[in-house]
């Protein structure tokens, strides 16, 4: 995990990683397409470089996406594992099924600290100043990627009008 402040040395390091990452993506892509959706991705580390701003002065640009994120985003196994963790780690106590409470909503499509999966990962790992705890000492990178995948799925399914209601409501009969 890096600070949002970037320096040339780091950028160069990130660029050097790209070819290796591409190989990894291609290797996965070579497998059966549906199996890719369902197969559980694995990761030993978090994203190499994450930003939480949209401002890049003097012609700067956002660092490239860490390709690990793409393996987790939208992956059914990762989302299912992330959902499980989301309950186990009491994330539901603050964010519920995406609507938010003590913590912000995760299904609204509005992201305080960035909605890219690597940015969501960074928020989980580092915590955020207004009350998001840091989980990097409690969880493995694999687990945080799975959580990030689940969090991302909340916004996606909300925008496609999938009901998030976990408890079916009924009318009150006095």
């Amino acid at each position, binding site marked *: 995990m890096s600070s949002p402040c970037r320096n040339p040395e780091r950028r160069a390091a990130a660029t050097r990683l790209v070819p290796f990452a591409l190989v990894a993506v291609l290797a996965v892509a070579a497998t059966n397409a549906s199996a890719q959706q369902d197969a559980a991705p694995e990761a030993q580390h978090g994203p190499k470089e994450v930003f939480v701003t949209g401002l890049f002065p003097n012609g700067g640009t956002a660092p490239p996406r860490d390709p690990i994120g793409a393996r987790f985003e939208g992956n059914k196994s990762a989302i299912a594992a992330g959902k499980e963790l989301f309950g186990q*780690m*009491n994330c539901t106590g603050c964010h519920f099924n995406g609507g938010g409470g003590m913590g912000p909503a995760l299904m609204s499509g509005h992201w305080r600290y960035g909605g890219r999966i690597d940015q969501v990962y960074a928020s989980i790992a580092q915590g955020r100043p207004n*009350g998001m705890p840091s989980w990097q000492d409690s969880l493995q990178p694999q687990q945080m990627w799975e959580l990030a995948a689940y969090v991302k799925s909340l916004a996606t399914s*909300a925008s496609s009008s999938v009901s998030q209601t976990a408890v079916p409501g009924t009318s009150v009969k*006095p």
Partner: protein
Amino acid sequence: MMTIPISQSVGRYQVARFTDSIGRSRWLRLLLTGASLLLYPALAAAQMPTVPASAAPSDDGQWTMPAKNYAATRYSSLDEINGANVGKLQVAFAFSTGVDHGQEAAPIVANNTMFIVTPYPNNVFALDLTKPGAPIKWSYQPRPAAASQGVACCDVVNRGAAYSDGKLFFNTLDDNTIALDAETGTVLWKTKLGDINTGETITMAPLVVNGKVLVGNSGGELGVRGWLAALDATTGNILWRAYATGPDKDVLIGPGFRSFYPSDNGTDLGVKTWPTDAWKTGGGTMWGWIAYDPDLNLIYYGTGNPGPWNQEQRPGDNKWTTTLFARNPDTGAAKWALQYNPHDQHDYDGINEHILVDMTVDGNPRRVLLHPDRNGHLYVVDRESGEIISAKPYGYVNSVLGIDLKTGRPVMNPDKLTKVGTVVHDICPTASGLKDWNPSAFSPSTGLMYIPHENLCMDWKSRPVSYIAGTPFVGAEVVTKAGPGGNRGEFTAWDPVAGKAVWTIKEDLPLWSGTMATAGGLVFYGTMDGWFKAVDARTGELKWQFKTGSGIIGQPVAYRGPDGHQYVAILSGVGGWAGAIVSGDLDPRDPTGALGMTGVMADLKTKTAPGGTLYVFALPKS
């Protein structure tokens, strides 16, 4: 020791042992006919409750503590503003708090200065009432830890400050109590009482008694172990701290402790009524109100819900959660306790206000307290002994069939008990109760109690939850909905002698504001869409209303200004548990959000917006 008082109570209250819903619906019908309204004045004149003078001294025109006085009447004896002229009430001045979270605080008025505390970041403003427009006299920014916002269950609220002897006392969300010089805003002392990494916050307004500042913690949804502490008002030193769970020595239960009911007596019940060590993360926080009887030298307060909400993880009575304590304020020693909701299954905290009145019961004068519990019952409790004199539902309730006056315990409806893996439908009242924190008022002029409350029900599904320090410890998925009739709020005028409602105003939105009664024959309260209302104290007739900038969840107060005229003040600014959907920009598509509150409050986003403004009203200068 218990046999004698119990046998007496059985004889006296045999007939009324069980209050039930059938009786309730009958009186509702009576109310609609207006019959009880006509009968009321004659009945009331005979045995109207009085307020103990030691707990409510004659009104000096100030408002130095949120509840107005130790008896917690929230009654102003100012009568310049009354039913005949309230229609002309207008804004005298307004002031932005600069914070757009829920404004639950009561403005405090002392020495011609008004003091307000904002929600997090708990900024304090002193406004000079002697100058036109009440300019800032001083302000103070405590700068609490930003991370404290992440462990505050239900918006980052603060319920106000307390003034005493030239000092202003208030609490910060990150667990500090601070004393300021009320004249200058200089910090006199600052005492850290808790740790946000255990999920602990402080949201309540302190009460100053006998030179001690009484402070309790919040965090019942994070497995926080509840306590009430007394700090030396001069030094800030912690003099005692009484926990709500654990061994007697921690709860400050000693030889002088004697409760009225058998199940509230025993050794180390704060340990024995829990699974091993569960009391350490069992809740019982104290984020509500404290009353004080100077004659008996006892303070009264209730503790919060047990944790987790999933009751299957904590078999037993879970003492001393949801419990009314009577304590000596000088030592903290408990004199007696009354557990309102043993083994609570519905998040029915006991922290709501206790109003002290003296009234005649069956021909005998009794010192009592009035307590509208989250479980929907209006308790009349003997404040010397802890005996429940009566407990009747003040709105629609189906989770509790009645209060057994022989045991002091609620008789639960077996169909509405909560379970793991099963959705239990239509539990009334909902988790926030028939009434939440927002305090009632009592008028000695009418003998009535004015209760701003909710009419909400819920579906509940428990699930297993692990304790992780500093995270929510809930284990339940809740969806709240409107109660019978569809109106989510009610404002009820209650006759504590007759034990019934005199009139009820149905409100579309849940009532989350406190209320105040005045000698002008008026009662003031606010609605979550921003209306500030004055109604006739005897009839409930709407006499005046004003639309403020945001929803109202604050506490109205009245004071006499330096010009000798009466003013009425309220903070406007939506939020709190019910209003978090607006102040926290929550997503209503998930009805389980905000502990099950977002679905039923989905329309609030279309009716108000966040804000934070003080409004002060007066009659036009003639």
